[in-house]
């Protein structure tokens, strides 16, 4: 109801960037293109499987925001942790998890990353230092701060990346976390994925300070505003931020980004104009931007990119086949993993 009443306001000053753009090598251009395209194709497939009733409950797609996790992960090293909310499929792909395990979790099968017991919003991987997958808005932020705390405590030089949305950024525990993170100079990068909406609420309707890069000001945490649709800008900012966090302590990156799809599969997204979505797609699409550079710079031919797309589609289709053919968890699993046996 409130969503419909949203004032028709032009999204203002989107995509002004921190200014810094990384100079990508040919290899980096191609890798970022591949990584982002994998996310997009995966999410499209997830949407399709949802439509076919193979995925249930809530399912939040990342389409449009691909440059954010892709650029960030290019700046991380082995052992760095990450944690996010329920819009998490891409974050898992970006840390290198097998699309099959992710898709099978979406379909709730025993081959899923959480044996089918977590679902789309609750997935984890110890191995890849990915700590979820959280359904409660904002809850991942103090937990990420605790991971950073454990890094410092253990004397490791790893950092944690805690992602949150523009909506989550208004949760009290975020500021409790900022305060402790700075008080104890914990090695953490807070990434605010400002996709302009929290469900149906445009940023300006929920936030008194809409410049999220300034949300750390009263804690003396520096912040940078980044064009989150340009993977080179994301990478440049992430590289600086990760170094800063390793040496000094917390830092905030506000990623100006946009989701093309509704909040979840059942959101008709009537709180924004088609025009607005169309304009973002046409002018700022993260994948098209790289594609254009690749073709203009003759780093690959149109046919090469088509082949790449085919390869990616095959991987995604394979994951979907696995996810729909894999059996459901054994009924006995109902009773496992409640407590560790002692």
């Amino acid at each position, binding site marked *: 109801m409130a969503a419909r009443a949203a004032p028709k306001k032009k999204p203002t000053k989107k995509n002004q960037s921190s200014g810094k753009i990384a100079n990508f090598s040919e290899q980096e251009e191609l890798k970022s293109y591949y990584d982002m395209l994998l996310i997009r194709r995966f999410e*499209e497939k997830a949407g*399709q499987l*949802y*439509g*076919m*009733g*193979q995925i*249930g*409950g*809530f399912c939040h797609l990342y389409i449009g925001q691909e440059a954010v996790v892709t650029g960030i992960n290019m700046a991380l090293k082995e052992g760095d*942790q990450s944690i996010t909310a329920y819009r998490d499929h891409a974050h898992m792909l970006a840390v290198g998890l*097998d699309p*099959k395990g992710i898709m099978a979790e979406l379909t709730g099968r025993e*081959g899923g*990353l*959480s*044996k089918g017991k*977590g679902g789309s919003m*609750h997935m*984890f991987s*110890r191995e890849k230092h990915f*700590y*979820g*997958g959280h*359904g*409660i808005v904002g*809850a991942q932020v*103090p*937990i990420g*701060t*605790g*991971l950073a*705390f*454990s*890094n410092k*405590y*253990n004397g490791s030089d790893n950092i944690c990346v805690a992602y949150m949305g523009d909506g989550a950024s208004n949760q*009290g*525990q975020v500021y*409790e*976390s900022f*305060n*402790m993170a700075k*008080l104890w100079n914990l090695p953490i990068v807070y990434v605010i994925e400002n996709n302009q909406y929290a469900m149906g609420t445009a940023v300006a309707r929920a936030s008194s300070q809409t410049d999220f890069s300034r949300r750390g000001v009263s804690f003396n945490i520096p912040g940078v505003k980044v064009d989150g649709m340009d993977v080179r800008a994301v990478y440049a900012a992430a590289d600086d931020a990760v170094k800063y966090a390793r040496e000094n302590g917390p830092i905030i990156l506000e990623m100006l980004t946009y989701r*093309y799809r509704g909040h979840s599969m*059942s959101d*008709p997204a*009537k709180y924004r104009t088609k025009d607005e979505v169309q304009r973002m*797609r046409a002018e700022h699409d993260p994948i098209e931007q790289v594609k254009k550079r690749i073709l203009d710079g003759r780093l690959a031919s149109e046919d090469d990119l088509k082949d790449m797309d085919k390869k990616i589609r095959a991987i995604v289709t394979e994951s979907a*086949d*696995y996810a729909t*053919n*894999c*059996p459901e968890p054994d009924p006995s699993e109902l009773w*496992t*993993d*409640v*407590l*560790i046996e*002692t």
Partner: protein
Amino acid sequence: MAIEILMPALSPTMEEGKLSTWLVKEGDNVGSGDVLCEIETDKATMEVESIDEGVIGKILIDAGTENVLVNTVIAILLEDGEDASVMDNMKPSAAPIATAEAEPVAETTLVAAPVAVIPQTDEIPEGTTFKQQTIREALRDAMAEEMRREDSVFIMGEEVAEYQGAYKVTQGLLEEFGDKRVIDTPITEHGFAGLGVGAAFGGLKPVVEFMTFNFAMQAIDHIINSAAKTLYMSGGQMGCPIVFRGPNGAASRVGAQHSQDYTAWYANIPGLKVVSPYSAEDAKGLLKAAIRDPNPVVFLENELLYGVTMDVPELDDFVLPIGKAKIERAGTDVSIVSHSMGIKLALEAAEILAGQGISAEVLNLRTIRPLDTEAIIASVKKTGRMVTVEEGWVRCGLGAELTAVVMDGAFDYLDAPVARVTSKDVPLPYAANLEKLALPSVDDVVNAARKTCYAD
């Protein structure tokens, strides 16, 4: 190959919908992301986007068609350069259904649970000497011993370090272990409870102190949604070895918002262990076990008992098993089952009852989850009667659960209905007289026991 476009499900409950409009026609070129048609469900009108590129070969369901079942083929998309004739030998295929044979499960590396040294017996060896300690000191010693034993154990909470604890439970810990391991937090329960959970995921063993459990309501989301459920949701990958501890229940005259007993709340949650000590011995042995446990443990203390002096066994490493009740006083006529402060009432009541010729057995639960049902059933089989005592409210409270346990396990042995002694069903009043009336008393326990014995 030509691609079938299916009627999508657009919500968790949608089974059919109306295909209201087509925004493309046969022969149109479409790209991925282009809107193909609009679908009306009972909740909203939604757009269907193409996820592939190609040419619309055929539209199979006309605009305006109602009750189109999910997964019906609504159109055919031809790929670049494909001829329309490929559609001739295409049969509409049903959606893959989840019955196919098992494939080998992707290999996952499960992190082995930390080896916990927790004894299975609560017996104190013959010849053990005891020392007199307050419960406060017993709790402090338990934490200090575990911190000496394992570097990964740390304590955090409001005023736990410099101030030595709001109720002085952490006295001396800062001096011994330094500010890396004894940490004053801001007044940010939700934040530091979540941070504690994260630190536990990160391999540490946090002891998170809540100044009282009333303030843990700010943090209950992390205790339940993050600490208790993650092991399950991660398919066993993400254990959370953490202790949430602090005083629970009524103190004295601090009013309704500072006096709640949360035992039944936490005891309702799978994925948690809930411990509630009565004596100094319980406090020492169970807190050590809680810290060693690889699971999240909610450790409910009682402020009014902190200063009580009792015996604690003088053993190098005194650890009690979680999940085992203790008979504090043996008897034959009625079982009084309780925990924490309730045991104090029960023991005093048992003394009075003895003078009246009624032999009461007092069973100290020690752990509320997992509940020692065996001990409860054994006691009731012996006495044939049960009185439950708790400080929580009666509805859906611990007494209801204990009663159900007895219904299941000792129904035929009962000689009288179970009697429940609880707080009155009101927020705790501030007025001294009213507060006294609201909380369970020794008299309440005596009367309940006499009632079950048909003594009046």
